[in-house]
């Protein structure tokens, strides 16, 4: 009964939230672009044509109408690479959050619900993890495991669970003293059942917000690692990698660097707005 009353209210608030709606629609658009990349991209993003290198985009003279945004230093269609780049950014973003969320939430739930020694141990792990310089450790791990999409997702997933852990620990702590959980314990419900079927659904809203903000964080980190040459491996069209490839030509062809950077900004901005909006409508108890 109560659920039915809350839901429409939530929806109404959502629809009225500018940040949520604008961020959300851009994210949906980007996801569509990523999913439909093979249909949308005018060319194969990997196909090189050394006779048509560094063609300028449509607003600059000397352009080629078949390459709307020009071509890169290997004569690959830039628009197609940008479109496929959305796949990498979003794929890595969601992939990493899947891994890190699983780790972080499990640790946080256990620490927050059981407290005591478990909490001390897990809190210690969180503190240790927070004190590691994340970019450097990720770089080192990728350098040694060999750069590939799978390595990158694993490495970042294993490193970026801290926010999930902190949030779910706090949520679990506040929920464990609530009456319905106490009641379940009293009637002898299994711990696993309480953890995953009762606690988890109750912190759903908070976790979705964290997840969104983490996706943005991961996208930026992937771009930075790829920019430094230790993320996604060429010739994969990652926006971070494209920025670094355009760097040599930045004086004469600044658009090679500007375009992927702009795409990155828009996506991260949209995901952040979506996260902020979600936080606003779900009560904003989180930082």
């Amino acid at each position: 009964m109560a659920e039915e009353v809350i839901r429409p209210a939530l929806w109404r608030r959502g629809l009225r939230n500018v940040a949520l709606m604008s961020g959300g629609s851009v994210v949906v658009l980007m996801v569509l672009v990523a999913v439909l990349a093979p249909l949308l991209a005018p060319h194969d993003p990997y196909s090189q044509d050394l006779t048509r290198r560094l063609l300028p985009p449509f607003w600059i003279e000397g352009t080629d109408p078949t390459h709307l945004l020009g071509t890169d230093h290997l004569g690959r269609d830039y628009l197609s690479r940008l479109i496929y780049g959305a796949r990498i950014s979003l794929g890595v973003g969601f992939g990493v959050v899947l891994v890190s969320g699983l780790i972080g939430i499990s640790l946080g739930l256990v620490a927050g619900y059981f407290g005591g020694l478990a909490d001390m141990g897990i809190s210690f792990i969180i503190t240790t993890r927070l004190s590691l310089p994340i970019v450097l450790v990720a770089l080192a791990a990728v350098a040694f495991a060999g750069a590939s999409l799978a390595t990158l997702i694993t490495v970042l997933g294993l490193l970026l669970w801290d926010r999930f852990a902190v949030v779910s620990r706090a949520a679990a702590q506040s929920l464990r003293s609530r009456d319905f959980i106490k009641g379940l314990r009293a009637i002898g419900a299994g711990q696993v059942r309480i953890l995953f079927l009762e606690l988890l659904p109750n912190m759903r809203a908070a976790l979705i917000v964290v997840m969104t903000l983490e996706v943005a964080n991961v996208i930026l980190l992937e771009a930075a690692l790829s920019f430094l040459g230790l993320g996604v491996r060429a010739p994969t069209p990652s926006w971070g990698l494209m920025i670094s490839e355009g760097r040599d030509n930045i004086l004469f062809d600044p658009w090679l660097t500007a375009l992927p950077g702009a795409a990155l900004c828009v996506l991260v901005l949209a995901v952040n707005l979506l996260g902020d909006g979600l936080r606003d409508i779900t009560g904003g108890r989180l930082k």
Partner: protein
Amino acid sequence: MTPSLTQILLSGAAVAMLATPVLADKASDTLNVAFSLEPEPLDTYKIAGREGLILARHVYDGLLYKDMDSGTFKGLLAESWSQPDPLTLEFKLRRDVTFHNGAAFTADDVVDTLNTVIKPDYGTRYAISVDWIARVEKVDDYTVRIHMAKPFAGAFEMLAGSLPIYPHAYFDAVGSAGMAKAPVGTGPYRLVSQEPGVKYVLERWDGISPESPKAGAQIKTIVVRTMPELNTQYAELMSGKLDWMWRIPPDQADRLASRVQIVSAPIMRISFLNLAPVAASGDTPLKDLRVRQAVAHAIDRDAITRAFAGGASEVLKAFCNPAQFGCTDAVTQYAYDPDKAKALLAEAGYKDGLSLPMTFAAMPRPVAEAIAADLAKVGITVQLDELQYAAGVSKWRERQAPAFFSNWGSYGVGDVAFLLSNFFGGGADDLVQDAELSGWLHEADTATDPELRKADYAKALSRIADEAWVVPMYSFNVNYGLSKDLSFRPYPDEFARFWQSSWK
């Protein structure tokens, strides 16, 4: 809207400092030079990088000078020389040479400098430059003898560039660090000020001996600055704040060509793709000659050379630089022909393609990617593995890199002896170990008859081409960006000689 804050802060900062404009060029007789890499401290004996060595060669002189046009050695601090016995060199020194600090140059300077830098504890960077000297002896004030520790064919090369003479009293007093801090030499320019690694100001030394082959410098002042970002250098070159820069990638050289002078000079270095039939204990598709030939046919070397090398670079017809003695193009050629490549692969049993790990080092990634893309078109899937040069070479030697894409500079020497024997002479880098081939090379390297040498090298190059052990790519060039007023002549040894430059 957002960067507004950034902009405000920046413009504030910019106004606050208003960088002092650099006075440039012809009008002030100042040559503004930019390097991307920091020159090392200016004691030649401890420098590895080209930037520091170029500066040092303006400040210091050695006993000899190599004339690049005739390939002969001339006296620089020495007037004449002789070889009384195979392990002794005797030099008569010039009498009219003065150091930048006013000290007169005598035999003591030669003896003191060389006897100091040959000591292991001095820490001379390249042992090869000094380890052939046993000791140096003063005969009289203007005669010295170098007693050699071993016969060394490169002795004159070393004396001509790598063994400058320091003023002995000053050198003894201040040591290596002091020399680097305030260099004193006999060269055509003297260093008047430096912020180490950042900025160097050189001024023409008018006290130079008129007999010196380095005499006759025209430009009064040279200002050398380190600017790591090439794009900044382009901008300054175009705006006239810079007169000289180098190592401009071909794409940028093309864009700059209409606004400044671009000079492209060929150098000895060549790039190539090594194919090892024996990598991974013979368990590689490359052990089949047809697969190696298919690789050679699959790569569009013309397009790659045009796109990425540009300038004075040439597509190589054999595994050697055409400028080298012994090089010939009368060997089997592999034209770009993807269909033939596919046919060869099918014949060899790889109808559905194959996968090939390719290591590359010291080559631009785009070139490696272009090769990989060409190979992909005929069904060869390449896994690119970029390594630092040393790591790449060791992987090759350990036979873990069936395909190794890299380059070789032949030590800047115009003779294939310095190229072929390294890769096919039976040494560590020779994975083929063809006894007949290394026999020809050995004979050619040690023979004195040029015709015999040529014939041997031709046989060797034919064998290498027939077996497709190497896919030769292209020769390198260096692009220089010059202001329109500057007249500058590049040399294949990549040493800038500003004492030969002048304003137009």
